[in-house]
């Protein structure tokens, strides 16, 4: 059975001239708009688990949105929901439109046109996400074939090309190897190669570089930046590496217990942190300049049980700034300052005056790739 493919937009293979898409500087319209996305897991014999609770955000072409936040806060689930890749026990509501196409509730056939073509995803766990019985080359080739009507040989060539693109040494050789023969980082790069195979409009990178050493990580990130510039790809990067997010994202979204707690453009967010959770995150980052073994600053307590979410603010129990109302009413995600939303009754004070550093315009760097 052949998959009928519809060309969505004009897409040039990676490594060729840009197709005249948006570069930096413009404010393109959102390619993805997510509205009140909710995901609940329900399995017989267990209380329903609310993994994502009303997520709204948008991503623009050529831009990068970073989702950071607590482990288990629904980051992966929320993006999997966009692609219709949740297990049967998942119930999804809300809306997510990709260039005006509603993704939620879309039938499998239509979703298939979107997957890979329009949205591609790098899964968090490459070890399990690769088919153990298929050579990695074939798996990349499959992604290529889904989108390009080209011959076997060309598919193989393209797959090798993609392996080289993600900096895998001895690409021709690795083509024939199986996932278990690769190191963690190599597998991850294979996943990235698969995602890049079709030049998607939206690339979701779920902790796509955690298994990479920093040099390779930098190379891969440059590769993505280059892609964005040439093809206008929008990127959602999920990461626990705040520095990485801060360095490469245009907008940042912080999640806690299935909800957004703070959202702004990168500069604003990191410079004017308002939500206590974001603040706590920042303070917990180990720093290169700090001597070894210095105790890290953490906050006590545990994230809430998603199947029994408390009334009021979910972060309240661990929040150093919690006040009475936090236990009664859930703080709304309001736009307190232009472009800066956060959900907190008692945020950190605005710290505009404490602006010391020169903001890095991440678009000004002109690094040559390869």
């Amino acid at each position, binding site marked *: 059975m052949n*998959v009928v493919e519809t060309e969505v937009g004009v897409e040039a293979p990676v490594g060729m001239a840009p197709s005249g898409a948006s570069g930096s500087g413009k404010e393109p319209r959102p390619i993805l708009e997510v509205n009140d996305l909710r995901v609940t897991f329900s399995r017989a014999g267990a209380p329903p688990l609310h993994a994502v609770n009303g997520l709204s955000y948008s991503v623009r072409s050529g831009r990068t949105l970073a989702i950071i936040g607590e482990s288990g806060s629904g980051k992966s689930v929320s993006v999997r929901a966009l692609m219709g890749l949740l297990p049967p026990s998942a119930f999804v509501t809300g809306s997510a439109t990709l260039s005006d196409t509603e993704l939620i509730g879309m039938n499998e*056939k239509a979703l298939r046109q*979107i997957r890979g073509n329009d949205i*591609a995803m790098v*899964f968090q766990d490459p070890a*399990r996400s690769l088919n*153990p019985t298929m050579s990695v080359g074939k798996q990349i080739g*499959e992604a290529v074939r889904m989108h390009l009507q080209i011959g076997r040989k060309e598919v193989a060539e393209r797959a090798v090309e993609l392996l080289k693109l993600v900096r895998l040494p001895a690409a021709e050789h690795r083509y024939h190897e199986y996932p*278990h023969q690769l190191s963690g980082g190599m597998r991850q790069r294979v996943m990235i190669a*698969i995602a890049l195979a079709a030049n998607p409009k939206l690339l979701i990178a779920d902790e796509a570089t955690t298994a990479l050493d920093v040099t390779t990580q930098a190379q891969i990130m440059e590769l993505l930046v280059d892609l964005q510039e040439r093809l206008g790809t929008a990127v959602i990067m999920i990461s626990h590496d705040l520095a990485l997010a801060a360095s490469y994202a245009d907008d940042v979204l912080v999640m806690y217990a299935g909800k957004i707690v703070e959202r702004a453009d990168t500069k604003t967010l990191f410079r004017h942190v308002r939500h206590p959770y974001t603040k706590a995150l920042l303070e917990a980052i180990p720093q290169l300049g700090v001597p070894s073994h210095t105790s890290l600053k953490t906050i006590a307590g545990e994230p809430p049980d998603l199947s029994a979410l408390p009334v009021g603010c979910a972060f309240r129990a661990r929040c150093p700034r919690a006040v009475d109302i936090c236990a009664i009413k859930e703080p709304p995600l309001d736009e307190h300052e232009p472009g800066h939303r956060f959900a907190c009754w008692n945020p950190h004070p605005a710290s505009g005056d404490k602006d010391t550093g020169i903001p890095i315009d991440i678009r000004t760097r002109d690094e040559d790739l390869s």
Partner: protein
Amino acid sequence: MTSSALIPVVRSEERTSLLGRVAGSPLVRLAVRRLLVSVLIVFAITAIVFALLEATSGDIARKQAGMSASEEQVAALRHQMGLDTPPVVRYFSWLGAVFRGDFGHSLISGQPISTLLAERLPVTIELVVLAFVVSLAVAVPIAVLAAHKPGGIFDRIVMVISMTLLALPNYVLALLLVIVFSVMLRMLPAIGYAPLDQGVIPNLISVTMPVLALSIPLFAFYTRFLRGDLVEVMNSEDYVETARSKGAGPWRVLWQHAFRNSSFGMLTIVGLNVGGLVGGTVIIEQIFAMPGLGVTLLQGALAGDSPVVLVCVIIFAAIAVGANLVVDLMYAVLDPRIRYGSH
């Protein structure tokens, strides 16, 4: 074309290195080693069979002679059948003859077993091969179709049908087929086998119902088994999701990803069935009056005709061992983790 044109000009070191590499392939080494062991297994089986026959079949000459024969007649028969030599001697002289390429003669009919084989082996082989081809050719796509939408209408219909067929013994099925296609519709012959030299079409017509009777239960079994496995893989493996996320259609996911994984269980079952079916054709051969090897083995075993039984056993065991050998090699081909096994 001259013969020299057929020999590629290869520099000697190139040739050896290529040869060396292929011979060094673990798959080839595994195959060769297993093949040798398989031969031993087959002969071990013949020894066991011979011993069991000796132990259980009693006075073969007497059985053969029937009730009205006198003692002297039975003794003469015993002598004529060569049963008055010790069993061990008989087994080893048989074994020696087999290694010289002589299958010997039937104790009962005195016919050379090679002519018996020439006549009967093709029948059974044809039945078995066609039964597998037909059952797999139908079962695999249907299982995939059913697994495509588990719980869907098609899946349910297929399930009920395959369960019904599974609950129907093949011998009853065979009789029902005859009643429908021979008695009622007069489309197909109720019995008999037309050898290939009578033409392909008559041959195929004559084996249609036996093959159906053999393959329908297999089909039902394979369909259910494969469908179950496919659904399991589709439900529990992450790489299936990766494939989906590439935009691969459900068919592609099923074929390329889930099927490949499910094929392990399937292969195992098919390998087992090949062994089982070569003997299992006996009832069908009987019902359709096909001159097959299954019937030959049955009659031989019942009569204690050990040379015939042993030769049949060699063939059946070789097929069964061979099938399982192929299956094991297929595992290694299909799952690289097994081939390079690190544990």
